[in-house]
C-alpha cells in the first residue's frame, strides 16, 4: 500500500518535466498514473469484502512514537477508488481543457493534481492520526495552489488565501484534537482509539476533543459557519473544482466524521450536533444555490448542500444511515464530477460563466449535453439512476431514526432544490432557446468527453445493476463505518414505501422549481440582508481585525525609531527581571559580602563607573563612544582579575571591534547633536536606565548569593583532557561537548551578518547618491 502513495508522489514529481516532452499528449499519458493505482487498489477489493482490513506498518519517527501504519478497509477502499478513478478522468480532462494554454501551465497543473491525489490517498489510508494530519494539511496546501492557479487574477488569489486560512486553520484545530486524544489515550493509532473509545468518551477531555474534531471536519467540508469558502474556491480551473471541490477533498471532513462517529457513538451530543449543523448547512446552501448566477457557483452551492446532507446522515445512527452515507458519497461523486466537467466544457467553449446567459449549447456540444442530462437525472434522484437509490436510503435513514419532522421537511425541500438545480444546470444551458449562444470557441474533443460520459453512464449502470457494487463496495464500506458486518441489499426497487412517496414529492417540487427558476431566482436576489447574514462577513471581520491589530502593533512597536526599540526592550527586561526577582521561587536575597574588599577589583570598578558617568555627560557622540569603551575594557580587566582569561580576551577584542564599527557609523552622523530628545524624553530614558541598573544589580546580587553547584565544573575539569584532549575546558566545551550548540550559534551569526550586510548595501547606495 505504501507503494500506492509513493507512485502517486513520484508521478507528481515527474509530471511537470514530462509535460515538456509529451506536449499535448500529457493529459492522456499522465492519466496512466492514477489508472494504474486504480487497478492496484481494485485488486484489494476481495481482501476487504468481508468487512476486514489490510494493515501495513512502517516505523517512521520512532522517537515520537509516530508510525506509518496504513490501513485499508471497506470505507478507505471506496475513497481510494474514487480518488484514483476520478483522478484518472480529471487528468485526461485537464489535458484537453489546457489544450489552448502553454504546455508549462498544463504540466504544473497535472503535477499539482497528482500531488493532491497522493495527499488524499495518504489521508484516507493512514491509521496513525499524526500522519493523517500531515496528509490532511497537504491537501489544504495543494488546494490552495490549485485555487490560486491563475495567480494573476486577484479574485483567485483572494479565494486561495481564504480557503487556506479556513481549511488550514481548521486543520490546526483538528491537530489540537488529535494531540488531546494522544494525551488521553497515549496512542495516535486510530484502530486503537476506536477499540478504546469507551475510555476516550469517559475522559474529561471528551467534549473538547469531539468539538475540535468536528470544527476541523466542518472547515474542510464547508459546513455552516465555514460554508463560504467553497463557492469562492470556484476560481480554480474547472478540472480542479471537479476533483477537489466536489468529488474528493471536501469529502475528507465527511470521511473524518464518519470515522469518528464510531468513536463517539456513546456521546449523543455528537450525533445531534451533526444533524443540526448538517440541516443548517443544507438549508443555507440550497437557498444560495437558487440565488447563485454562475454555472459553477450553482454547482458549488449544491455541493455544500450535499455535504450538509452527508453530515446529517452521519449524525443519524443505525445500519441504514451507514449505507445511506456510503451510497450518497458514491452517487454524489459520480454525478457532481460529471456536471462540473460539463460546466467546464460549456464555460471554456463560450467564455460565459453566468448560467443565465447560456442557452442552446446542445447544437455545438451534443455529447456533453447528453452526459449533463444523464448526470443531472441521477442528481435529481430519478429511477433508474444511482442517485435515486441513495436518496431512498437517505429518507429511510431519517424515518427509521425517529427524528422529529423538521429534518425530514428540510431534507425533502433541499432535495427538491437539488432536483431543480439538476434540471436547470443540464437543460437550460444546453437546450433552452433563450440567450442562445451563436458561436463557440471550440467543439468537443475526446479528452473533454471521456470523463463526463464515463461518470454519467456509471450513474445509470450502477442504478440498473446495483447488486455487484452493493456487495463489493457499498457493503464493506458501510460495515467498516457501522463497526460490524451489514447485510446490504442495495437495490433499485424497494416496493411502495414511505420513502418512495417522499421521493415523488421531491421530484414534483423539483419540477416546480425548474419551471419557476427565474422568478425564484430574481426574488432571492433582492434579499440582500438575509444573504449578508450567511455570507463571509465573519471571515472578513476576523481577517481585517487581525490585520488591523498587526498594523497597530507595528505602528507602536516597530515605528523605525531606534530609541523606541531600545526603550521597549529595556522596559521589558526590567519588568521581566523584576517580576522574576519578586515573585520567583528564589526570591530577592542579598547576602552581606564576605571577606575583605579587594583593592584591585574596586579600583577597576570605580574606573568603569567613571566611564559610565562620562558617557552620560559627554557632549559629543565620539566622546560618549570612548567613555563606553572605558566601561567595556574595565569589564575585561575584571574578568581577568577573576580568573577568566578567555572571557577577558574576548571582551577586549569585541570591545575594540565595537569601537571600530561604531566609529564608522558615527562618521556618517552629525558629531554634535544634543537636543534631539525633549527634556521629558530624557527624564524617561534616565528612569529606564536607572531601573535597568537597579534590577540587574539586584539580580546579580541574588544570583551570587545562591551557592554554586560545582558538579558540572568538576565533571568537565576531570574529563576534558581524557575525552577531549584539551586542557582549556572552555574551549573543549565549545568545540567538543557542546559543538552542536556552537555550530548553531555560528550559523546564526553568519545568517544575521548576511542579512545586515544586505541591508547595509541598500543604505550605502543611498548615501552615495545623496553625496
Amino acid at each position, binding site marked *: 500500500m505504501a507503494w500506492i502513495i509513493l507512485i502517486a508522489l513520484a508521478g507528481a514529481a515527474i509530471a511537470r518535466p514530462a509535460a515538456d516532452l509529451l506536449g499535448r499528449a500529457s493529459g492522456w499519458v499522465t492519466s496512466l498514473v492514477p489508472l494504474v493505482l486504480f487497478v492496484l487498489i481494485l485488486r484489494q477489493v476481495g481482501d476487504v469484502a468481508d468487512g476486514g482490513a489490510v494493515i501495513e506498518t512502517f516505523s517512521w519517527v520512532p522517537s515520537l512514537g509516530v508510525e506509518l501504519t496504513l490501513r485499508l478497509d471497506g470505507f478507505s477502499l471506496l475513497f481510494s477508488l474514487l480518488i484514483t478513478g476520478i483522478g484518472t478522468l480529471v487528468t485526461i480532462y485537464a489535458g484537453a481543457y489546457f489544450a489552448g494554454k502553454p504546455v508549462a501551465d498544463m504540466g504544473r497543473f497535472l503535477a499539482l493534481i497528482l500531488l493532491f491525489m497522493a495527499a488524499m490517498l495518504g489521508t484516507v489510508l493512514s491509521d496513525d492520526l499524526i500522519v493523517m494530519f500531515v496528509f490532511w494539511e497537504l491537501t489544504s496546501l495543494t488546494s490552495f495552489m490549485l485555487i490560486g492557479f491563475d495567480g494573476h487574477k486577484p479574485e483567485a488569489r483572494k479565494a486561495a488565501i481564504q480557503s487556506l486560512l479556513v481549511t488550514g486553520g481548521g486543520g490546526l484545530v483538528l491537530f489540537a484534537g488529535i494531540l488531546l486524544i494522544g494525551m488521553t489515550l497515549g496512542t495516535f493509532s486510530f484502530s486503537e482509539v476506536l477499540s478504546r473509545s469507551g475510555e476516550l468518551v469517559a475522559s474529561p477531555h471528551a467534549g473538547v476533543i469531539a468539538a475540535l474534531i468536528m470544527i476541523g471536519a466542518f472547515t474542510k467540508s464547508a459546513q455552516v459557519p465555514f460554508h463560504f469558502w467553497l463557492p469562492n474556491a470556484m476560481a480554480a480551473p474547472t478540472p480542479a473544482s471537479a476533483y477537489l471541490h466536489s468529488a474528493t477533498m471536501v469529502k475528507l471532513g465527511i470521511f473524518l466524521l464518519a470515522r469518528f462517529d464510531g468513536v463517539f457513538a456513546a456521546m449523543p451530543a455528537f450525533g445531534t450536533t451533526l444533524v443540526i449543523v448538517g440541516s443548517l448547512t443544507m438549508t443555507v446552501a440550497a437557498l444560495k444555490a437558487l440565488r447563485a448566477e454562475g454555472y459553477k457557483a450553482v454547482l458549488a452551492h449544491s455541493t455544500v448542500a450535499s455535504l450538509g446532507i452527508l453530515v446529517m446522515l452521519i449524525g443519524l445512527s443505525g445500519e441504514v444511515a451507514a449505507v445511506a452515507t456510503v451510497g450518497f458519497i458514491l452517487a454524489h461523486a459520480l454525478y457532481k464530477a460529471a456536471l462540473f466537467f460539463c460546466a467546464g466544457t460549456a464555460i471554456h467553449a463560450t467564455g460565459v460563466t453566468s448560467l443565465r446567459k447560456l442557452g442552446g449549447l446542445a447544437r455545438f456540444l451534443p455529447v456533453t449535453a447528453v452526459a449533463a442530462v444523464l448526470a443531472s437525472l441521477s442528481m435529481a434522484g430519478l429511477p433508474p439512476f444511482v442517485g435515486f437509490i441513495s436518496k431512498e436510503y437517505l429518507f429511510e435513514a431519517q424515518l427509521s431514526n425517529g427524528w422529529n419532522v423538521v429534518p425530514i421537511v428540510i431534507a425533502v425541500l433541499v432535495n427538491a432544490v437539488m432536483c431543480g438545480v439538476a434540471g436547470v444546470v443540464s437543460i437550460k444551458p444546453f437546450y433552452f432557446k433563450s440567450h442562445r449562444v451563436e458561436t463557440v470557441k471550440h467543439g468537443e474533443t475526446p479528452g473533454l468527453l471521456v470523463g463526463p460520459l464515463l461518470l454519467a453512464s456509471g450513474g445509470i449502470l450502477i442504478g440498473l445493476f446495483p447488486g455487484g457494487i452493493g456487495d463489493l463496495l457499498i457493503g464493506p464500506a458501510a460495515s467498516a463505518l457501522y463497526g460490524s458486518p451489514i447485510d446490504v441489499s442495495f437495490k433499485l426497487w424497494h416496493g411502495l414505501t414511505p420513502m418512495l412517496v417522499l421521493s415523488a414529492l421531491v421530484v414534483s417540487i423539483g419540477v416546480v422549481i425548474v419551471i419557476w427558476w427565474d422568478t425564484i431566482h430574481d426574488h432571492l436576489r433582492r434579499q440582500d440582508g438575509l444573504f449578508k447574514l450567511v455570507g463571509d462577513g465573519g471571515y472578513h471581520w476576523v481577517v481585517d481585525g487581525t490585520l488591523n491589530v498587526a498594523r497597530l502593533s507595528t505602528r507602536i512597536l516597530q515605528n523605525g525609531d531606534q530609541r523606541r526599540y531600545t526603550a521597549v526592550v529595556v522596559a521589558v527586561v526590567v519588568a521581566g527581571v523584576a517580576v522574576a526577582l519578586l515573585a520567583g521561587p528564589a526570591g530577592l536575597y542579598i547576602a552581606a559580602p564576605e571577606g575583605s574588599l579587594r583593592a584591585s577589583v574596586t579600583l577597576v570598578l570605580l574606573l568603569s563607573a567613571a566611564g559610565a558617568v562620562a558617557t552620560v555627560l559627554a557632549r559629543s557622540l565620539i566622546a560618549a563612544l570612548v567613555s563606553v569603551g572605558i566601561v567595556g575594557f574595565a569589564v575585561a580587566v575584571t574578568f581577568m582579575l577573576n580568573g577568566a582569561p578567555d572571557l577577558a580576551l574576548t571582551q577586549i577584542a569585541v570591545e575594540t*571591534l565595537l569601537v571600530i564599527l561604531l566609529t*564608522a557609523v558615527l562618521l556618517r552622523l552629525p558629531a554634535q547633536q544634543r537636543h534631539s530628545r525633549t527634556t521629558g524624553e530624557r527624564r524617561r530614558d534616565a528612569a529606564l536606565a536607572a531601573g535597568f541598573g537597579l534590577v540587574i544589580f539586584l539580580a546579580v546580587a541574588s544570583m551570587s548569593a545562591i551557592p554554586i553547584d560545582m558538579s558540572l565544573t568538576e565533571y568537565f575539569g576531570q574529563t576534558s583532557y581524557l575525552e577531549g584532549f*584539551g586542557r582549556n575546558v572552555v574551549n573543549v566545551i*565549545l568545540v567538543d561537548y557542546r559543538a*552542536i550548540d556552537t*555550530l548553531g550559534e*555560528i*550559523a546564526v*551569526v553568519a545568517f544575521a*551578518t548576511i542579512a545586515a550586510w544586505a541591508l547595509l548595501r541598500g543604505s550605502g547606495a543611498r548615501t552615495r547618491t545623496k553625496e
Partner: protein
Amino acid sequence: MQIIFATMSRLFFVLMIGVSLFMLFRGHNEPGGGFIGGLIAALGFALLAMARDVETARRALVVHPVALMGSGLLLAFASGLPGLLSDRSFLTHWWTEIGSTHLGTATTFDIGVYCVVVGGVLCLVFRLYEGIEQ
C-alpha cells in the same frame, strides 16, 4: 600621524594575524580558540582598512568575506561528519596523536569558527568603511 599609522599598520597587521593563528591553535590547551583568534584576525584586517583603505584590506583577505563565512560554516559542519560515519554521532571528534600534540577534527571545527568570525565581522567592517571613503 596618518603616515606613521599607515606605515605601521602593515607591521601590526602581520603581527595580529600571527597572534590570531597562535590563539587559534593553542586554544585547546591554553586561553584562546577559534572565536578569539577570529576576532583578533578581523581586527588586523580592520586596522588595515582604516589605515590604508578598504581595497587594500580586501586584497589582503583574498577571498570575499561572505565566501569566507560560508566556507567556515561548511568546514565546521563537515568536521562533524567523520564522527557520524564511525560512531553514528554527529560532531563526535576523531583524534590522532603526532608526537605529544593531539590533532583532530575538533581543530577543524575551531578553524571553521575562526573563518565564520573573520568573514562575518569583516563583511560589516568593509561595508561600513567603504561608504565613508566615498
